[in-house]
């Protein structure tokens, strides 16, 4: 583990993480009704956040990116630390939001402030949703990273990989949005995402070895 490199990459995510954590925590705390009733918003948020993370870490044409790649870190180290930073950036937003649900904070607010009718069953129902959020993050990030690198490399295969990623995300999201936790198609989608993420992680590592630093 190269701590300096990791912290350096994390620093790039700082503004995004700050904004995203505030939005995620505020929404999780204040959205009325059980979380599964408004599932499309977390999905869209995670998608937007993943795109923000990917683009912030993959600004291939900047002088800063080029400087980092001239230091003598191996490409394998740069790729693994970039992915670790992306994951950490997601966790930095997910953990506070998940804590709001897992601790009685959300239930308390809704019971006392909004006198929610869902009070006793709210916390156990919501706790199932937050794991789906985490899974969606961890599956999306490698997909986005792979599509992003592939897109940016002029000498490589261009649009093919990117289009596939977009199609997978749209299909998966519609499935996740209409099915409930524990239902069969949802597990299938999650499994397929996991597999795709693993493949993208390995393929992205390969692609990153030959990444052009053109600046």
């Amino acid at each position: 583990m190269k701590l300096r490199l990791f912290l350096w990459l994390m620093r790039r995510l700082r503004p995004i993480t700050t904004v995203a954590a505030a939005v995620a925590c505020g929404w999780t705390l204040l959205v009325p009704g059980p979380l599964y009733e408004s599932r499309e918003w977390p999905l869209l948020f995670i998608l937007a956040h993943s795109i923000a993370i990917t683009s912030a870490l993959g600004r291939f044409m900047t002088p800063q990116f080029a400087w980092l790649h001239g230091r003598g870190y191996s490409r394998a180290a740069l790729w693994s630390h970039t992915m670790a930073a992306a994951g950490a950036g997601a966790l930095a937003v997910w953990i506070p939001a998940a804590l709001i649900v897992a601790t009685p904070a959300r239930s308390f607010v809704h019971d006392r402030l909004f006198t929610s009718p869902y009070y006793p069953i709210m916390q156990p129902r919501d706790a199932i949703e937050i794991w789906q959020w985490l899974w969606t993050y961890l599956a999306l990030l490698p997909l986005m990273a792979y599509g992003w690198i592939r897109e940016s490399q002029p000498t490589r295969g261009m649009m093919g990989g990117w289009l596939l990623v977009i199609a997978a995300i749209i299909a998966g999201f519609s499935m996740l949005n209409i099915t409930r936790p524990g239902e069969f198609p949802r597990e299938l989608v999650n499994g397929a995402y996991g597999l795709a993420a693993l493949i993208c992680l390995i393929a992205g590592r390969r692609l990153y070895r030959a990444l052009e630093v053109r600046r």
Partner: protein
Amino acid sequence: MTEPTHVLVARRLSRDYGRRRALDAVSLEIPAGRIVALLGPNGAGKSTFLKLCAGMIEPTDGGASIFGISAREAPNSAPWRVACLLDSHEPPEWADGRRLVAMQAEASPRFDRAFADAFCFGGGIDPRQPYGSLSRGQRRRLLAGVVLASGADLILLDEPADGLDTAARRDLYDRLRRRVNDSGSTAIVATHNIHDIERVADDVAILARGRLVLHGSLEELREEVREIEAPLGAALKPDSPIEILARRRERDAELLWARSTGGERAIAAAFDAAPAISPVGLEDLYLALTQTSFEEFESAQEVQS
């Protein structure tokens, strides 16, 4: 001393950006333990050449190998053996000197911290001052110091002394010389400041419009290259063992720059009329070569149109 091994071998190395050929079939070999001055006008392909050497970009044709492996493979299998500071590479504004040094130390197993502290933080640079608030000279000093301290076997520098004052420039190049002499590493320095680099360089490579127009050791060039002022109409004897590098017609004479392993005597013998022959410094030779290739290019354009 042992026979030098080649640190860098380029074979017909070429690179296109879109339809523009930035580097065109450059072939050269650079032995270990040398400082190479990479000269050329703006847009001659110096940065492209350095990026290809560092394995950062893919050659369109031909290839380069460093330490016997493909340059494109080096960022994977021998990343810390190359350290580079290109003109377009810069750390983010918020990073301070302490961080930049610590980061290079993490990437380079042979990092020389004492050197980095002495050089980077000499000249009134506060280690905690953000990069963005440093002057241009301080920035170059910091970044060049980090690269010199890296302990890399191949050091690629693009205008490392830009913005430094005379004393700091000389100090930088003296330290580069010492590192190369002590560790046997190799440095390629792209610069426009021929006067400074001539003091320290062992070899010179001159690029013009993507082509390598001259490559050789400076000591050899000092022996073999002469500037000749010949009367108009003076003819070169056929089969003379000399190479005309450049020529320019003046009003009442012709100026030539010629190279021969036989040195001045061979060059004098090649002319039927007695010409005035004088040694030539790097700056004049550079101007002669790059202007000639520019004129050649212009006339080629005219023929095409």
